[in-house]
């Protein structure tokens, strides 16, 4: 028993346990959510948030922080709702250019040794600006196939749960279980030793930022699939949600210690926290504040676990 409850084990279990506790509380408050339809409604919006959190996780993994992610996802949502729908080829090219731009940002931050916060804060202006040009007024429409995918009703298990599991496992095996993934994460842990071992840090940073851009694009597409239209500010709050989700899920800020499964669980927890608070009839004014409290509590809990680990 005591061997099972090592600090490392508890740290891994913490995100899952928080989610389970939250779900139990929601089922208790509103038993009707415990159904196929209820879960579908509860978890629908968790899918784009989970993708955004994965994107942020790639950035966190190389010791950077992306404060423009929300603006970037808004832009990709605008492109999805306009060009991808009207002229799929141009849409795909534009989205590919978005991913390439992220890779270039990674290169710029690495080559000039820049603080990622400042660069991404500046870029958030650029993304919003482009989004305003692409879609000056809210509107557009979701491409049919994305709409179909996001509103799938598979038998037995609601689509959002399947999507979350697929996202988590894909990234988990890609980043945590593959040889390339080890190098990528090692770059966050000890960039010097990765460089000495003959790997190019430039390529690592570009890859990680490109992956972040790619998942940002997916997040924007998933979001439009749910909302069926877009506007230039549609996903601005995703910046904070994605950082919070990554941390809830057990990501550390330095050292390349991240967890894709944890990140997805963290994102779902945050998405559910909103519903939980409204089931509690809590004043909506406190919803943002409650997210802050949850974040601080989880960080405090983790500190408690870690300090037990060092004492043992």
């Amino acid at each position: 028993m005591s061997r099972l409850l090592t600090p490392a084990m508890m740290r891994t279990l913490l995100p899952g346990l928080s989610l389970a506790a939250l779900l139990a509380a929601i089922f208790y408050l509103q038993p009707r959510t415990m159904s196929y339809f209820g879960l579908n409604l509860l978890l629908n919006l968790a899918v784009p948030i989970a993708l955004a959190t994965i994107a942020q996780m790639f950035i966190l993994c190389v010791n950077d922080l992306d404060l423009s992610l929300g603006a970037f996802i808004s832009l990709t949502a605008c492109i999805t709702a306009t060009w991808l729908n009207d002229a799929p080829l141009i849409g795909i090219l534009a989205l590919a250019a978005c991913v390439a731009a992220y890779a270039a940002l990674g290169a710029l931050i690495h080559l000039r040794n820049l603080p990622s916060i400042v660069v991404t804060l500046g870029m958030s202006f650029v993304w919003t600006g482009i989004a305003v040009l692409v879609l000056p007024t809210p509107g557009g429409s979701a491409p049919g196939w994305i709409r179909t995918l996001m509103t799938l009703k598979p038998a037995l298990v609601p689509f959002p749960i399947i999507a979350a599991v697929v996202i988590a496992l894909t990234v988990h095996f890609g980043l945590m279980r593959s040889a390339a993934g080890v190098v990528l994460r090692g770059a966050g842990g000890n960039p010097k030793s990765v460089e000495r071992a003959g790997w190019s840090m430039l390529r690592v940073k570009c890859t990680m930022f490109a992956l972040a851009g790619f998942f940002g694009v997916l997040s924007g597409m998933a979001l439009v699939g749910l909302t069926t239209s877009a506007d230039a500010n549609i996903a601005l709050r995703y910046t904070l949600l994605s950082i919070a989700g990554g941390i809830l899920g057990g990501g550390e800020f330095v050292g390349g210690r991240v967890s894709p499964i944890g990140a997805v669980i963290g994102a779902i927890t945050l998405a559910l926290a909103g519903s939980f608070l409204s089931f509690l009839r809590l004043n909506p004014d406190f919803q943002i504040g409650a997210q802050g409290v949850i974040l601080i509590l989880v960080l405090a809990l983790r500190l408690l676990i870690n300090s037990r680990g060092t004492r043992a």
Partner: protein
Amino acid sequence: MSALSQLTQKPWIWAWLGAVSMWMIITGISGISAGGQVLSAAASFGTFFVIVATGQMFVITLGPGNVDLSIPACMTLSATLAMKFMNGDASLLVPGLLISLTVGLAIGTLNFLLILLLRIPPIIATLSASFLYQSTAIWSNRGLRVKPPEILGDFAVAKVLGLPVLTIVVLVLTLAMAFMLHRTPFGLSVSAIGQNIRAAKLAGIKVEKTRYLTYLMCSVLAAVCGFVLAGFSGGAALNMGEQYLLMSIAVVVIGGTSVAGGYANLTGLWGASLFMFLLVSMLNTVGLSAGFRLIVTGAIIVGVVAISGRKSSV
């Protein structure tokens, strides 16, 4: 020649050059009288940037990872609580200002306690806590715009010899800050911690105390800025602090303060504040659409950071 090359070595010169060239473009397009007006406006609006950026500059100078992301929420909360308390009554101005200062002191203390106790990077601590402050502001504000007392509004827009009074006050503040930065043990400790935290510790500098005072000062300045800004713009609004998050950081970096910490620059802060305001005015004058304005603003911030980046990271 050597004097010129010495001048171009100064970290603050680029911000001032940028500000001057922006002003020249505006004057060239709209004439000298419009140029005078925009300069006066820049002096007013730039002042608010300088107030918050001064606090942010001290925080950033503490070294990598030190950024205060709770500035917008702090401004909003301080302005909201103070305006609500005063409810337009001029006789309550002093207690109102005290409330605003208390908010600043409380937020600075809470921020630092989170950083110290949870041992998390200041970015994350101030970000998480800012949710709380913003929520409290939303709860107490209820979407209303409470009018400031008239006297506060008058003070915020008053002018002496064509120069806004506020600008003069903040200039004095900047001089005091410059003295503090370069001549007092506190200011020197901040720079020393940013240059090498281990050496600073070994030299007997009280690192945690210095960091606490720095975060405290940043929050108090943001709170006061929110207070005066509410007077300037006719009341406290929930989104009043929004643009100050990026501005506070951008102004510090463009002004020549090292992003890696250890080297602060107050002269550049003024240049960069004027530059940022004049840049936006210039883009308006040229008649660019909102989208292009945002793109150019962002691109210039990233560009300046990229050009000045390598020097400061040494």
